[in-house]
């Protein structure tokens, strides 16, 4: 992983022999032009940690002062010395997720270069909570010996839908860890995990579009490293772009399915799951009352069921297609997608991605109406539910993923065998 995003002066700083104990990447454009504030926040976060003599903060907003390096001038003997470096500004022409993946790679590469004991990436912290987030992510690594600290956010019922519906239960079923957000976007890794990530075949990283975040959790778990979660509170999220859901699915699920393929030998041996140790206390979810209009999503699902049968038929077995057709005829008020059906769809798409029975981009984009159908069904189910009921609903889905794991294993090993 080259340090390709740093300037010459920054490289000189990075290559100084004294290295750093901690590298923090702040990948949020909201903090543009706040070099002083970022340094102050980093100092505040590091104040509670012991054994840190030098920390490097990387910021990717690209619009800080033209001087690439802003060293912390005061109190190097008393407090940890903090250095702020700029990562290259994201290319405006590049899609947002791809520039984010580049930034992840640069932060991890810098941490490896500096032989840091821990590396944290902060991508969605609200301004006021930044110091606490840095502390909560880094502390379990530096003081408790964990290797990966994944985030646990306080979410409203309609937040983190892709995580709720696919990423988290898939990670739980395949790798046996209950992680709310296996792909971050905020996380911290130890030097050991960093080394494992860097030792992976670079071709794999090129193949998965550089989305290193997709393989962090699986690499840690399959490598036998210590994984935990840290309760961070509510996160700052950009407004949802409903017109580009298919691009999002392709960007996120492509690398995840590639990683599933890469780790196939490991996850086929894992049985059951266990709760992941958690740090910090979960915050109360503030109740938001609102009307959820799911009609358009159901329409989208119905249109998909009418027109994409031919494409779905390449990856889904006939019984699933039959159930989908039946589901598309239900009136909106009774629209409910059974968990078992959704789980089989996800598993069959993961298998279809592996077998390349159709173009991978087509495959992932054709999942969009099904995903919107699941959201509609979920939204109707939790419309009047409280936090505890929502948790129970998510738990039920996760268990369905675990229960159906033998189906995936069987299809993975014998893809040509008929599966009713």
């Amino acid at each position, binding site marked *: 992983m080259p340090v390709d995003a740093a300037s010459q002066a920054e490289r000189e700083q990075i290559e100084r022999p004294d290295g750093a104990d901690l590298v923090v990447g702040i990948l949020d454009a909201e903090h543009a032009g706040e070099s002083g504030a970022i340094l102050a926040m980093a100092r505040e976060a590091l104040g509670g940690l012991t054994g840190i003599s030098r920390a490097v903060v990387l910021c990717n907003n690209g619009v800080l002062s033209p001087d690439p390096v802003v060293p912390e001038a005061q109190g190097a003997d008393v407090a940890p010395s903090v250095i702020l470096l700029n990562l290259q500004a994201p290319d405006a022409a590049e899609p947002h997720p791809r520039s984010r993946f580049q930034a992840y790679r640069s932060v991890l590469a810098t941490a490896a270069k500096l032989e840091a004991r821990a590396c944290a990436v902060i991508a969605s912290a609200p301004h006021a909570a930044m110091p606490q987030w840095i502390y909560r992510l880094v502390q379990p690594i530096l003081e408790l010996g964990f290797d990966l600290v994944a985030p646990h956010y306080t979410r409203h019922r*309609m937040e983190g839908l892709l995580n709720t519906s696919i990423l988290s239960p898939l990670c739980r079923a395949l790798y046996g860890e209950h992680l709310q957000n296996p792909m971050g976007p905020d996380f911290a890794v130890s030097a050991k995990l960093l080394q494992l990530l860097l030792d992976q075949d670079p071709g794999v990283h090129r193949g998965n579009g550089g989305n290193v975040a997709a393989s962090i959790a699986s690499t840690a778990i399959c490598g036998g490293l210590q994984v935990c979660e840290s309760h961070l509170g509510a996160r700052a999220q950009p407004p*949802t772009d409903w017109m580009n859901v*298919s691009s999002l699915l392709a960007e996120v699920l492509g690398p995840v399915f590639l990683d599933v393929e890469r780790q196939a030998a490991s996850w086929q041996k894992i049985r059951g799951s266990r709760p992941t140790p958690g740090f910090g206390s979960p915050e109360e979810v503030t109740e938001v009352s609102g009307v959820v*209009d799911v009609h*358009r*999503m159901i329409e*989208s699902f119905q249109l*998909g069921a009418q027109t*994409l049968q031919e494409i779905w038929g390449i990856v889904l077995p006939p019984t699933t297609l039959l159930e989908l057709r039946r589901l598309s005829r239900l009136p909106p008020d009774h629209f409910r997608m059974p968990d078992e059906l959704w789980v089989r769809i996800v598993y069959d798409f993961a298998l279809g991605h592996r077998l390349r029975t159709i173009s991978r981009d087509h495959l992932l984009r054709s999942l*969009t109406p099904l995903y919107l159908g699941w959201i509609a069904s979920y939204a109707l189910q939790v419309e009047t539910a409280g936090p505890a009921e929502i948790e129970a609903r998510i738990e039920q889905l996760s268990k369905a993923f675990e229960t159906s794991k033998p189906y995936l294993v069987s299809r993975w090993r014998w893809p040509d065998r008929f599966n009713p």
Partner: protein
Amino acid sequence: MWDQVAQDLSHSMTGMLSRLAGLLPGLVGLVLALLLSALVTWAAVAILRRSLTAVHFDRRVAQWGFPALAELSPARSPTLLVVRVMACLLMLLGFLIGISAFDVTLTSELAFRVFAYLPNVLAAAFVLAAGNLIARFLARSVLIGAVNMNLQYARLLSAGVKWLVTVLSVAMALEHLEIGGGIIRLAFGILFGGIVLALALAVGLGSKELVSRSLDREAGKAASQNFQEPVGHL
């Protein structure tokens, strides 16, 4: 007089029979060439099929990014397709060699012309195959994209794109085969123009929906789904 008639008849019959007898070695040669080529074809096909099966050719074709080739193949097996194409080519070669055995100027010229025409046939076949693959790929892209944009006429758009590319590739193949000439160009122009016009009308009539969605998008992405609470995917 009758003697002369009988003599003429006998001459013509002898000539006819001797000409037929002259053709016999050629016919035997043709049959032998066909038998030999059938034997060679059988052996070559058996070796080729075993080799392709051994290297998992069907799976590799899909992995190389040509899953559509399986759909075009008999029994959805690209191996079978390659084997059958090879068998046809070998049999054709044997037939042409057999024809040459007649040692008649006409047959030799025929064989020469067929050989000279073969590159055109191969080029046309390649253009048709490539056109078919591209048409399927583009049709699928358009179908998925249109469904994801919630356009009700997604199937029509997809079919339009598929036919556009198919008509284009067929016209190009006919051009390579030197069949039709000006008529093909004229027919292609009319057909292509007709499809474009039909698509333009379909899109134009249905564009109200598209414009309203674009306006939705401009007005506010989250608002387009009427959610009044925080919504996010990741």
